[in-house]
């Protein structure tokens, strides 16, 4: 598939990288630990260190720099407003007064901390979790003891999100083929309403068909699992990587 679908993040980037060879569970745990540590750290030096660690992880995971930057930009755009406003809204020692608005040093520091923190966590999560097949993420979460129902919901979502997206694309195309252009006005709102209504109806019908297909294969409410990979232990690499990362995190926290 050449177009960029919702599941692009699901594509394994480089399974041969060091991060790629780690057990999915190790990666999930590390990502959670990293996020927790970074959220708790509050001085700029340790946050900078954390961002550097995240970048190292990204390099180890062989993330494509362009794609990573593009994703980060989306995050940056989201935070821009908050970051730009903070220096002017947090009271404290005044640094400058552009156009008569006072910017405080404390506000600036807070903005910098938030920017570092968000980027460090985003890069680390992309490196550790984003580079793995979503299905293995689901299985890893399951083996880490997440509730079974939640995992099934997650796996079904992954499985069908693309089917729904295709359905949405088809409907949109059909609208465009009849010269529909989004604009403002009752006609447009009604049509978009129909589009989403139809998508709901079709999804519901599909859900019913899937249920029928499952019952045809003897489903009675319990999910059997073929996966007994749970028996395999985390390897040397996992322990080593985990230990090194914990040391690094302690450094950040200190």
């Amino acid at each position: 598939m050449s177009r960029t679908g919702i599941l692009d993040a699901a594509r394994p980037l480089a399974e041969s990288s060091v991060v790629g060879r780690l057990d999915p569970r190790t990666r999930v745990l590390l990502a959670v630990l990293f996020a927790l540590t970074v959220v708790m750290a509050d001085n700029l030096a340790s946050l900078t260190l954390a961002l550097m660690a995240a970048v190292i992880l990204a390099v180890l995971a062989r993330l494509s720099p362009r794609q990573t930057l593009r994703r980060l930009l989306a995050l940056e755009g989201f935070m821009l407003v908050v970051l730009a406003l903070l220096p002017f809204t947090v009271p404290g020692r005044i640094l400058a007064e552009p156009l008569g608005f006072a910017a405080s040093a404390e506000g600036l520091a807070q903005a910098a901390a938030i920017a570092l923190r968000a980027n460090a966590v985003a890069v680390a999560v992309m490196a550790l979790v984003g580079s793995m097949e979503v299905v293995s993420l689901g299985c890893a979460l399951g083996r880490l003891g997440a509730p079974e129902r939640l995992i099934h919901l997650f796996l079904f979502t992954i499985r069908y999100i693309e089917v729904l997206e295709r359905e949405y694309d088809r409907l949109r195309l059909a609208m465009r083929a009849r010269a529909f252009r989004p604009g403002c006005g009752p006609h447009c709102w009604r049509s978009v309403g129909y589009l989403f209504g139809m998508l709901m109806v079709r999804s519901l019908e599909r859900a019913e068909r899937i249920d029928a297909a499952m019952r045809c294969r003897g489903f009675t409410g319990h999910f059997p699992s073929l996966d007994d990979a749970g028996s395999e232990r985390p390897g040397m690499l996992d322990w080593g990587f985990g230990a090194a990362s914990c040391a690094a995190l302690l450094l950040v926290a200190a």
Partner: protein
Amino acid sequence: MIRLEDVRFAYETARPVLDGIDFTLSAGDKVALNGPNGAGKTTLLHLMVGLVTPQAGRVIAFGRPRRAEKDFVEVRARAGLLFQDADDQLFCPTVAEDVAFGPLNQGKTKAEARVIVHQTLSELGLEGLEHRVTHKLSGGQRRLVSLAAVLAMRPEALLLDEPTNALDDATRARLLDILAGLPLAMVIVSHDRDVLDRLANREVRLEAGRLT
């Protein structure tokens, strides 16, 4: 194997889809079921495995009348239904898990299920797909894998709902070869003349709620 006696079914009471159907599928039968769009061919297949319940009439499958949902659990294992849209049928993350789903539900152990998965996939020439993620398969692969998933339950009859729909020529020929080589009783819904000529040994037509 499966007998329908004077079966009636309607989605809306005013317009019955099936209006007194008598139909028998015996061992060795390969029945082509055709008829115009919306005539109720899919509904008829769904009736046979209890996915819809008739408003009147009886469904007798494998020697016993079947009424409730739990009666049909066994029927569905012995008469495998291949859905029109393979996306509906493949819901597990990986091909192996999907093919194993039926056998595991039948109470096979994991080791047995794995053997069955392997066997079924290699019978259909799909060995390489075992660990692939289902939503990344091509349309043709999806259709073949969903057939494998049905065959993995070792059914005695196959109910095929437009099996060659939207397949390219190569995959279609491959699927036909596979189906022609299976010794199972079949009901085949298809608009594809070739398919019917090649697979069927008997033909019935569903029109205006009746079989002719």
